[in-house]
């Protein structure tokens, strides 16, 4: 596509900067010197995709490889997509403006289940056959990675290869092998067979699935000598792993418009609903001086005046105090802000608060997830009311006067008393503010409660549990709203219909591929966006495919049932997940990984089998 053609497409399109590329630090290579062209596709908008750290890392990493050119591709918003369709233009990459159908490898990162229709729409609109079996040549190889592929089954029929675990480990090996096979003119079948031997690479077409009469999975069998189970790949030493020294700097404002510095992977907390806390095990930290050095390098090359320290739970970082001390030296001098996302309430010490308050006052956000102590014990969110109230008091004394709290509805064994406890906790926080003797005069307090619907996820202790039906969730939402009597507390919630669909695809099987294909035919896209999500179309798609959502979402499964993702090994054992689920039923908590090893099995991925030096 030429610039002039692009100009025409952009007529009347919202935020044209999403489609024009040419940003600082984007990589343009000479096509004649490139052997493998990789289209890195994020199946959502530019603003969301460009905020994603994994894409930045893998984009830089692939572009360091000789003869490999990785470009970025995002889902065009419906206004642009319609213009493109009229002009016969397929989805294109931002660096070369070439259509993705011209690429060797088309890779999708799947961050949430509701982007599946975008992935298929992007392929279809580029005239690429959506089912893997209909693509015969080695080029146009469709691959996928990201957290959703820990159950890749719902998309298994679309993709040629799936990456389990951390991309820095297997993606370069995979691309290198591809380069060799392409040079030798080998077939797609030959390549996939060879690629299946790379650790963490799952080739769905090398496995056959059979079903019982009741719709549950009967067996998953490897064809020939394909590995079974397929084990995820991880980076063992985070200090030595590749980290980009620059990021592509978007022109338009993105969701996270700042430098992002990774601090560690994994999480010591074993919250029982949390998939990230399970599939990214074991915990591996970067040293404070590595973090500080890499963060400084990023700020220098991008010009950002804000850097965030990113991980699943940054306040659990063992070197947080030395790190902040070190970083504040240069960030203060260069007038750069440090932002700390996802701070955990119980490690929010006054010293740390003091240090953060020196930087800039940002919003105070906590995630107690459940209102009653019993419920928090069930989900293993090891934090008590006293800690929450103490933290809020410290924050109020530091000048904060609004708090945002995240909760989940529909957790296993939840009662209406547990739900009322959310409002009671909110009220106690309000009281805490007014009990402060030296509170700021003329200022009120605002507690915002945000409710999500619990989605049981694969590879978690709750993977067997049922999700509440939509009517039940709605009733619970209303029950909470009615139980709150003050205007100091506001309640907002997510649409429970999207949570239902999420639950279906999170724990779905291969038969869902045809539902997704049908939904795309019917026009489903951007399902994560309220203005485009259409439940009626989805219901139609399920009906047309002879499947129901309830089978996947609202049914409790037995420990004996063969789960569709059981052959995908994330190195957290079934025995551990079962034990945790049983403890949940008795509302008994489990210590965090640093206090005591709970024997999940992920330690075997590390040399010496130790997650921490002291254990």
């Amino acid at each position, binding site marked *: 596509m030429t*610039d*002039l053609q*692009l*100009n*025409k497409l*952009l007529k009347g399109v919202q935020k*044209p*900067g999403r489609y*024009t*590329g*040419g*940003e*600082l630090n984007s990589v343009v290579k000479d096509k004649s010197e490139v052997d493998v062209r990789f289209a890195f596709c994020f199946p959502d908008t530019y603003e969301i995709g460009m905020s994603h750290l994994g894409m930045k890392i893998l984009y830089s990493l692939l572009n360091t490889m000789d003869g490999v050119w990785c470009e970025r591709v995002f889902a065009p918003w419906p206004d642009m997509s319609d213009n493109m369709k009229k002009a016969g233009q397929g989805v294109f990459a931002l660096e070369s403006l070439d259509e993705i159908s011209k690429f060797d490898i088309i890779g999708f990162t799947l961050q949430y289940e509701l982007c599946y229709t975008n992935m298929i729409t992007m392929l279809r609109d580029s005239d690429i056959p959506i089912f893997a079996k209909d693509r015969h040549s080695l080029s146009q190889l469709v691959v996928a990675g990201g957290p959703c592929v820990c159950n890749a089954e719902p998309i298994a029929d679309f993709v040629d290869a799936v990456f389990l675990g951390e991309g820095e480990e297997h993606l370069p090996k995979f691309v290198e092998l591809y380069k060799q096979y392409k040079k030798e003119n080998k077939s797609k079948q030959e390549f996939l067979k060879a690629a299946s031997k790379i650790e963490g690479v799952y080739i769905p077409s090398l496995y056959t699935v059979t079903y019982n009469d009741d719709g549950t999975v009967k067996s998953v069998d490897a064809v020939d000598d394909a590995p079974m189970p397929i084990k995820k790949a991880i980076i063992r030493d985070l200090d030595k792993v590749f980290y980009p020294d620059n990021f592509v*700097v978007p*022109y*338009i*404002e993105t969701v996270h*418009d700042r430098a992002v510095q990774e601090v560690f992977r994994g999480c010591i907390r074993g919250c029982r609903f949390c998939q990230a806390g399970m599939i990214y095990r074991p915990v591996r930290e970067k040293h404070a001086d590595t973090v500080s050095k890499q963060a400084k390098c990023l*700020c*220098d*090359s*991008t*010009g*950002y*005046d804000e850097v965030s320290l990113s991980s699943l739970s940054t306040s659990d970082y063992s070197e947080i105090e030395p790190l902040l001390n070190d970083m504040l030296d240069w960030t203060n001098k*260069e*007038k750069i802000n440090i932002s700390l996302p996802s701070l955990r309430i119980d490690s929010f010490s006054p010293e740390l608060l003091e240090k953060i308050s020196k930087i*800039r006052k940002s919003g105070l956000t906590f995630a107690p997830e459940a209102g009653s102590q019993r419920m928090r014990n069930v989900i293993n969110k090891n934090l008590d009311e006293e800690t929450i109230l103490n933290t809020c008091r410290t924050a109020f004394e530091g000048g904060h006067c609004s708090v945002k709290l995240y909760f989940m509805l529909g957790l296993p064994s939840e009662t209406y008393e547990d739900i009322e406890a959310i409002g009671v906790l909110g009220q106690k926080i309000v009281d805490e503010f007014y009990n402060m003797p030296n509170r700021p005069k003329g200022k009120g307090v605002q507690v915002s409660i945000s409710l999500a619907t619990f989605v049981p996820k694969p590879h978690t202790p709750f993977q067997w549990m049922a999700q509440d039906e939509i009517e039940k969730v709605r009733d619970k939402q209303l029950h909470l709203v009615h139980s709150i009597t003050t205007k100091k507390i506001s309640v907002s919630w997510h649409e429970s219909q999207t949570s239902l669909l999420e639950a279906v695809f999170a724990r779905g099987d291969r038969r869902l591929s045809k539902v997704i294909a049908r939904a795309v035919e019917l026009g489903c896209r951007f399902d994560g966006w309220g203005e485009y999500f259409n439940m009626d179309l989805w219901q139609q798609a399920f009906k047309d495919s002879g499947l129901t959502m309830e089978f996947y979402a609202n049914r409790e499964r037995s420990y004996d049932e063969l789960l569709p993702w059981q052959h995908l090994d994330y190195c957290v054992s079934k025995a551990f997940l079962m034990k945790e689920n049983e403890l949940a039923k008795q509302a008994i908590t489990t210590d965090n990984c640093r206090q005591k090893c709970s024997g999940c099995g992920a330690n075997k991925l590390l040399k010496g089998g130790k997650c921490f030096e002291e254990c």
Partner: protein
Amino acid sequence: MRNVRLIYQKTDRAKYISHLDLNRLMLRVIKRSKLPVWYTEGFNPHVFITFALPLSLGFESRYDVMDFRVEDDSLSNEDILAALKSALPESIVAVKVIDPKLKAKELCFAQFKIIVHCDEQNRTKLENLLNAGEILVEKTTKKKEIKSFDVKPKIKDMHIQTTDYGMDVTLLLPAGCDENINPMLIFDKATADGIEFDIENVIRGDLYDKNMEIFC
């Protein structure tokens, strides 16, 4: 500390950077350039930059103006230009750094070149519209009311050049704090009148003061 003025051009795909995004982009450029610029002294200190005349989304420019302050007086304009050049993305071109003579409010006119693709019949229609004694256009006021007014007397100068693809129209229009006329008002009117054409590009050229001297 002294005031400096950067003259730059927005070219190619940079025309899709909105004014707000350009503002953020320039802050990052200054940060990368490591120039010792002056920060505001408020609660959240930030780099102080101002733009003489914001540009509409989709327009290129050949004489854009950004002012800021440099703490170190020993730096020459050439040093500053070199530092900025090394930090700017490709499609934003630094032309020169000068000592500001005029204030932004002394800016009065801007020249626009509109590259129009159309057939001969529609070209004649467009020419007739542009050459008429009165061009009534509609503008949405700040109160969201639609106001109709004659734009013809506002056009300080106009040239029409016939080309093989259609025509190039050069307009000199009021610009600055007091009055701004967007050239698209006239072309939107043409579209509303049923004239068919495509605009390939709009390029804002030189900026002038009230005496038609180049703004500097």
